[in-house]
């Protein structure tokens, strides 16, 4: 560990402030709690909210997993993992089941979580009604008075215009029958995973300086209409690597002719499936070469 940083990068009093914020957020599920966000060594828009949460929570006993769009090996995930190795000498893993803290951008792991785990989400804009109501004072009042009609109006507009609710990610939910919450830009496919999850779910927005939380085993309901109920995405295809049909699939281009295939977005889950089938895990680059070679 570099001698110039405090453990976890943030100083202890900052960590204490953030812990207090987290406790308040847990006490009021879904409510956005303001916090004194610090300047981090990466710009806004790169996960500073999530990083501050992880920095506050991480201890030498923890094992950290970082994913971005479901994968452990994308640039951002790798950078963040390296950051915590540097400032916290963190133990890291790509295996979901082995992690105690999972920091994620834009996906929830397919592997079900346990009571011993904390899921930290990176959130760009925490206010779900911001796009309809630009005034912070007004949205605060709407939350306080539980005036969420305007959110349903948005869904109504979708159906009127597209015949169905067009929102496919960042799909608004009501937490604990009370607060309207932005679940962060996860695909709506993942929304059901938030409901009654044994793990603690924390959401950090660095630029907006807000933290909100969903405590374990909390009711989380996606907004819908009686005659247009909430539905998750479905694929006709299955994962080209592990053959799984129930995970979120990414459509990827495999060669220069633009041929495409579908593979699991959650790389660890894909590897697990292969393991269960007694197969070796597959490197995606190799997989690509293999696919294009086969054409």
């Amino acid at each position, binding site marked *: 560990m570099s001698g110039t940083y405090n453990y976890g990068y943030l100083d202890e009093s900052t960590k204490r402030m953030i812990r207090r914020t987290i406790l308040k957020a847990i006490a009021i599920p879904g409510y956005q709690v303001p916090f004194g966000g610090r300047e981090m060594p990466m710009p806004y828009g790169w996960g500073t909210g999530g990083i501050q949460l992880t920095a506050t929570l991480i201890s030498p006993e923890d094992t950290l997993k970082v994913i971005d769009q479901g994968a452990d090996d994308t640039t951002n995930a790798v950078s963040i993992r390296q950051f915590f190795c540097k400032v916290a000498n963190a133990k890291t893993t790509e295996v979901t089941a082995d992690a105690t803290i999972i920091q994620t951008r834009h996906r929830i792991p397919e592997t079900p979580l346990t009571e011993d785990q904390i899921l930290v989400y990176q959130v760009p804009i925490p206010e779900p009604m911001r796009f309809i109501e630009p005034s912070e004072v007004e949205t605060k009042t709407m939350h306080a*008075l539980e005036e969420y009609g305007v959110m349903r109006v948005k869904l109504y507009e979708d159906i009127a*215009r597209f015949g169905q609710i067009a929102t496919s990610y960042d799909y608004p939910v009501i937490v604990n029958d009370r607060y309207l919450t932005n679940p962060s830009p996860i695909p709506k496919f993942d929304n059901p995973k938030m409901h009654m999850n044994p793990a603690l779910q924390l959401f950090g927005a660095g630029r907006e300086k807000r933290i909100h939380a969903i405590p374990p085993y909390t009711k989380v309901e996606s907004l819908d209409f009686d*005659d247009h109920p909430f539905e998750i995405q479905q694929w006709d295809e299955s994962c080209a690597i592990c053959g799984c049909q129930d995970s979120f699939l990414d459509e990827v281009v495999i060669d220069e002719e633009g041929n495409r295939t579908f593979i699991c977005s959650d790389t660890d889950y894909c590897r697990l499936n292969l393991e269960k089938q007694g197969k070796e895990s597959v490197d995606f680059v190799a997989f690509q070469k293999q696919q294009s070679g086969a054409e």
Partner: protein
Amino acid sequence: MLHLDEKPILEVKDVSKLYAENKGCQQVSFELYAGEVLGIVGESGSGKSTLLKLLSGQLASDNGEVLYIDREANLHSLFEMPISDQRKLLRTEWGVVHQHPSDGLRMNISAGGNIGERLMAIGERHYGDIREESIEWMASVELAADRVDDKPSQFSGGMQQRLQIAKNLVTKPRLVFMDEPTGGLDVSVQAKFLDLLRRLVIELKVAVIFVTHDLGVARLLADRLLVMRHSQVVEQGLTDQILDDPQHAYTQLLVSSIVR
């Protein structure tokens, strides 16, 4: 049979809000009964808009009280009730029609969405039903059903005003506040609009308090008038009596200024 013991739905007692000497409104008292239309007339600066904002909970008063009896016969003191109750009242039993439709409509949400918003806010969850009800209300204000998905920005001023009315009536309010409802409309459109208002008031038995500087509109719509000048009510009574036999000097001046 006269209902001599009829209870008013709104009691305004000695309400004041002054920005400066004689700017604002002061010592205003009156009662309003179910289905009654009260017009507040006066020239600019008379305080009529201030009074309307006070009564509809958009402004806090210096003193006085406003009592409202809701559908379930519960008494509410407007200035003392918690803001959440006030906002709820404004969404359910009350309505506010603004002078500029853009203040009362979401301009980038479709007509159906605008009308449906209140329904969704009171708990309606069936898209098909909400849409149908929106279309019915559009018909009642003479807006064509095929415009239900159009945005108010695509409507004319008169249509926007009618949409505003529909948006407010959808919760079948008992009391609607209107600030210069014909203010931004062309004269030719005004007639149509006033006719609609008259019919709706008669059919739905909704009480209305409206502000206008146009005595013609007042005569057409109001059962009773409050005449304001320099923050005070100088005369109040039956519309036809005020306009045909004005007692106060200022009222006489106002009435004599109408070009017939």
